[in-house]
């Protein structure tokens, strides 16, 4: 398939084309930039929800509940489930889909991905994959990631509403999340509320919450396996969405996101043009022997390669 064909098929919502394009993004296929450029004007319509939390807290089961609800409203859905890949072999077993299999059909597009070595609980391709689903007409996109530590807050930069899922007995972990995930969450969900009295948990979390730009972060108890609390969760998601829409928060969020992405791209472009430098090892040696600082070395390399960087950029 050529670029235009792929784009047209994706825009028409063709599952096979969407799936192939996602693979091409993950594998960094040669014509990918051109295809993404053509899709870009068709993006920005989907609302994106992130679901993060430690492994086994019930994220996929909750998402299953959300899918059933949104599907019954006739929404077109996309779901991306991200699991870590083995740092040694690069392999992974992706088991989230297993929990969703009975609620999905051709109308719900679900893709399981691995981090492919990327840090922060997400994958390098995530932004582009979200765009593909968005352009294909999905009105709502749900992303599942594993989030436990401070580095895993990255997902907050990709979504409009972020749910942090925890479960009772996680008192100590809550302490750890204090300066990380709890700060970026828009809604906190205490799942598996059937297992024990979770009132203490609610209090512990509320104590550690800061209000998020004027949005009062709600703490909700759910039992994902039987649907308890799901309607309330959905109400809160709607409230958060309305809050973002009425306060113009959504525009700010999305502009911040674009800024972040551009800066990242600049870094990547510069880096790509420099890593191949034949004198790199010599420069490393100089830094190692304290002749120059890393900061100075970086400037040296940028200066040396300025024409290469310049020439490798497209004309605009």
């Amino acid at each position, binding site marked *: 398939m050529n670029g235009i064909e792929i784009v047209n098929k994706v825009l028409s919502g063709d599952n096979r084309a969407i799936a192939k394009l996602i693979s091409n993004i993950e594998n960094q296929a040669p014509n990918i930039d051109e295809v993404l450029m053509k899709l870009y004007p068709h993006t920005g319509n989907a609302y994106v929800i992130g679901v993060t939390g430690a492994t086994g807290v019930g994220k996929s089961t909750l998402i299953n509940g959300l899918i059933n609800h949104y599907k019954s409203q006739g929404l077109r859905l996309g779901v991306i489930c991200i699991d870590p890949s083995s740092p040694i072999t690069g*392999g992974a077993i992706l088991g989230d*889909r*297993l929990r969703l299999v009975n609620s999905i059909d051709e109308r719900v597009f679900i893709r399981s991905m691995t981090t*492919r070595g990327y840090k922060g609980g997400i994958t390098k391709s995530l932004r582009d994959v979200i765009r593909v689903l968005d352009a294909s007409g999905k009105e709502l996109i749900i992303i599942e990631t594993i989030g436990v530590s401070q580095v895993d807050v990255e997902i907050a930069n990709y979504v409009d509403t972020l749910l942090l899922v925890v479960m009772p007995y996680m008192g100590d972990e809550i302490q750890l999340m204090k300066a990380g995930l709890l700060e970026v969450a828009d809604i906190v969900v205490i799942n598996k509320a059937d297992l024990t009295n979770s009132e203490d948990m609610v209090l512990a979390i509320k104590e550690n919450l800061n209000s998020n730009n004027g949005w009062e972060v709600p703490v909700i108890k759910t039992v994902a396996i039987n649907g308890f609390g799901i309607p309330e969760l959905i109400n809160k998601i709607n409230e958060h969405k309305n809050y973002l829409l009425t306060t113009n928060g959504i525009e700010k969020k999305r502009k911040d996101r674009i800024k972040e992405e551009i800066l990242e791209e600049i870094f990547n472009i510069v880096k790509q043009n420099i890593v191949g430098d034949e004198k790199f090892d010599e420069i490393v040696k100089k830094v190692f022997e304290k002749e120059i600082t890393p900061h100075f070395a970086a400037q040296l390399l940028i200066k040396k390669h300025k024409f290469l960087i310049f020439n490798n950029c497209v004309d605009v």
Partner: protein
Amino acid sequence: MERKIRVLIAKPGLNGHDRGAKVVARALRDAGMEVIYLGMRLTPDQIVNAAIQEDVDVIGLSVLSGAHDTLVPEVMRILKEKGAEDIKVIVGGIIPDDDVKKLKEIGVVEVFGPGTLTPQIVKFIKEIVAKG
């Protein structure tokens, strides 16, 4: 970046356990593949839908005797109907020789009987994916 091999492991039909399927899934993971583990009690429709959306190279079906002569052909038929017959299908389970022949006739690339060692399956998958 290198292209990753993606495999869907599923057990169609209502009976049995998925121990064997899990062993294979782990072996493929340890060989560096991305394995979408779909579990058991699946319909052919669910399996094909997952295979297409996940864009896998290979579907591995773990079948118990009895399921292979109805469910596997149904998977093959739906793959074809959706224009996804380039996804390779392998089958694992106890299957009589005559039926193995029949499965291969409808496009199943290989059938692995009991006693197959996982490295054999890993090697086979790498080969068929490389061949394209």
